[in-house]
């Protein structure tokens, strides 16, 4: 049974009592105020922004701090620390002198987290990898959201065979397990000789666009479904009927009446979808069918580190931690946005 909470209910209605006066506020303003009151969500947002900022500062770190090119092998390289010359890849010890081990974390500017098996600076690669992971994660989520909203508006508003056609198409995509579909698409697209050519469009092999588009496409139905449902419902609401009675065009109905009312749903979904797309990108890259060398992403670095788990675990652990922090931040942020934009769901949960 729902528990009546006067403050929350008043907030939902857009009426707030401030110093004895009743003040009217827009839903967006109220959502903002509710979000700012959620300290956990604010902390998550700050953490996410921080991760984005440091990842996009990767070139600065590589050029001015680590002084390295994290995309080129440095197997025969050396560096100096505390006056000592250290080999980046060190020959194995013991009676037989077998194996070559990359330098471990120095906790200094150069090779802060050590080197990988190619002698590349792991810290710099983790930052560059973050940039690629975030670009793909955010890009594919935005692509998925754009396509899903467009399709959902068309399907929900026009209904009939248009709705049937688009809904079945989405069902078809949904019917495939996400990873199976993504792996299949990636395998086909990545093995195309000399990249992908569609008409005048040429995507070079190794382009970040390939995993971005693949991941974006497979997640379209996950946004399409809830948004279409909402559009179907809104289509029958009084304010839409009133607009129709006033002679509003279809364009105006869609863009001025319906779209603003589904925006909050999309905004709530976005952090969760980004978190999911980042995880998908990491999984595909780990399987060597996402981001392609010489580019790096957190998934490819985890894969690189797998062969060094015994001797240099930080190579795999560092990108793993970044993935966990990013996904955690996005999930908490998503919860906060949902609480702020859709307080009724909080009431329902409590009930």
């Amino acid at each position, binding site marked *: 049974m729902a528990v009546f909470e006067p403050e929350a209910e008043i907030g939902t209605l857009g009426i707030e009592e401030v110093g004895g006066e009743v003040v009217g506020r827009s839903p967006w303003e109220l959502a903002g105020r509710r979000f700012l009151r959620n300290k956990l969500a604010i902390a998550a947002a700050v953490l996410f922004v921080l991760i984005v900022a440091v990842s996009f500062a990767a070139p600065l770190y590589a050029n001015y701090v680590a002084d390295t090119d994290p995309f*080129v*092998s440095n*197997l025969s390289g050396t560096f100096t620390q505390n006056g000592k010359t250290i080999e980046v890849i060190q020959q*194995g010890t013991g*009676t*037989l002198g077998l194996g070559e081990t990359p330098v471990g974390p120095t906790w200094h500017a150069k090779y802060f987290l050590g080197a990988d098996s*190619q002698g590349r600076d792991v810290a710099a690669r983790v930052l560059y990898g973050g940039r690629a992971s975030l670009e793909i994660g955010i890009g594919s989520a935005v692509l998925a959201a754009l396509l899903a909203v467009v399709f959902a508006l068309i399907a929900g508003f026009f209904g009939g065979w248009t709705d049937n056609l688009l809904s079945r198409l989405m069902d078809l995509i949904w019917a495939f397990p996400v990873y199976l579909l993504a792996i299949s698409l990636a395998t086909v697209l990545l093995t195309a000789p000399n990249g992908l050519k569609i008409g005048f469009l040429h995507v070079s092999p*190794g382009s970040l666009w390939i995993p971005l588009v693949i991941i974006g496409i497979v997640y379209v139905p996950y946004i399409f479904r809830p948004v279409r449902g909402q559009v179907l419902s809104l289509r029958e609401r009084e304010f839409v009927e009133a607009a129709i009675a006033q002679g509003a065009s279809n364009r105006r109905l869609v863009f001025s009446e319906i779209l603003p009312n589904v925006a909050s749903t999309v905004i709530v979904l976005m952090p969760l979808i980004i978190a999911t797309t980042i995880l998908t990108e990491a999984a595909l890259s780990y399987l*060597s069918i996402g981001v392609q060398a010489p580019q790096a992403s957190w998934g490819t670095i985890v894969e690189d580190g797998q062969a060094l788990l015994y*001797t240099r675990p930080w190579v795999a652990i560092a990108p793993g931690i970044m993935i966990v922090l990013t996904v955690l931040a996005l999930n908490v942020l998503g919860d906060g946005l949902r609480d702020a934009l859709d307080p009724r769901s909080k009431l329902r949960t409590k009930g």
Partner: protein
Amino acid sequence: MMRSRSLFPLLTLIGLAALVLTACGGSSKKTSSTSSSASGASGGTLMTVAKDAPSGSPDPQIDYTLQEWQLLILTHDGLVGFKRVSGAEGTKLVPDLATSIPKPTNGGKTYTFTLRKGIKFSNGKELKASDVKYTFERLFKIGLSPNAGTWYNVIVGGDACVKTPKTCNLDKGVIVNDAKGTVTFNLTHGDPEFLDKIAVPFAFILPTGTPNKEVQIPPPGTGPYKFVEYNPNKQIKLVRNTDFKEWSKDAQPNGKPDVILQKFGLSAEAQVTQVENGQADWMFDPPPADRLNEMSTKYANQVHVNPLTAIYYFAFNVRVPPFNNLQARQGVNFATDRNALVKIYGGPNLALPTCQILPPNFPGYKPYCPYTKNPGSGKWTAPDMTKAQQLINASGTKGALVKVNTDTTDVNKALGLYFVGLLNKLGYKASLQALAPSIQYPYCQNSKNKIQFCYSSWFQDYPAASDFLNILLGCGSYIPNSDSSPNIAEFCTKPIQAQMDAALQQGITDPSGANTKWAAVDKAVTDQAPWVAMFNPKLIDFVSKRVKGYQFNPQWYFLLGQASVK
């Protein structure tokens, strides 16, 4: 052949042996061939572990993997065999089921063998000359034997058998006399490598009546062991063949363990741990790079490092831009830091840099390395970036897109990554294409895929220069649009092919003179730079504490039957 994949139709490529004169075994501090002589008591179970069962078919006339061949040499025999000892002697042919190795007659086209008497198969039947004919007809009749059409079609009637396997008849090619125990092979032309080819498992003798179709467990053989279980999802089990009586210690010595087990399903990491803990006696797969230091420090006495007659290389496609340009190929060769590649493989104690096709201590080998700073010594010393840049600038190929193709195994992917970085540094736009090992080799072989730069490796089938030069870079080995085209570089130069043909012809009567010719072929091919030859690898065998009498044979590697676990 290659160690983990097959060759021709099968594409499993796994390698065989390495001729290796262990005396020149490089710098490894413990290049064992026999760590403790062939001593040790008989009995017990030799427990071996591997990630997967041998790829391809269990049928001895189809399988082309070192993993199964190491077992088949314990259960079956050929008319001749490689001597079962360690060191250079191990590459010598000795009579096995035959009483002696015959001299070819009729211009190298006829070989007559006499079978030993009293040898029995593990099903109790006595070996007869007619079994030999049956075996060679079956080789064609099953239709899946990878080298039937390339190695054994030299037998009179062989070509017809390749065309119509079901009706294969070698009445004129293999003439047998059960009463006298003689077998005469008639060849269409002299083949200097015919004896080598009948010393490998494809030609191991099977009893008459073995089904003329692929079998799921190797049929009875004449060796000291027999297969009693072949479950690719679980294990292979060999037990003693009670009908075996040692007839030649050189060709087929009696085995030490009573049972040899090979269990599947363990990762290489887990295999190392099991051997360390004494739960397994030997691991088939190469130990992972991150365990080498631990093995080298804590378990050095259980590690055996042996040089192989094998090569790791990246093949350019000489018919597809940008590497259809000789200067571009030579430029990349000059720029390659082979020491860096050796480091990726495990360091200087596990591999030696090379520039040429033939491996050291191999027939026809003469040190040659033009792609180094200060060439002349025949050894690679350092990359020459200045010369590399000059050549690549002159080639006009800068800025070209290059896909570096490799497989997804850790080491091979790392080798590919190195070249992506190097090619980008040289002005190309390179990216990596890493495919699953089972896909990558056939993908690279098929000219339809227009690969540009592809990783591969090759382990000798038998000690002959043509096994590298002619098979990997001969015109006949380039088969357009086929997954079974081992000449990945698509290299075919008529003058060089003529040199190869002349060397092959001379080999029938004058093997030593032929090897001088092969050395010239090696140099000529290296100058044309169809590959970046990277290094000649060594093999690590990691055995448990209780294993005594470890022996490394250059043809068959670790002789499992000679290891004592009692």
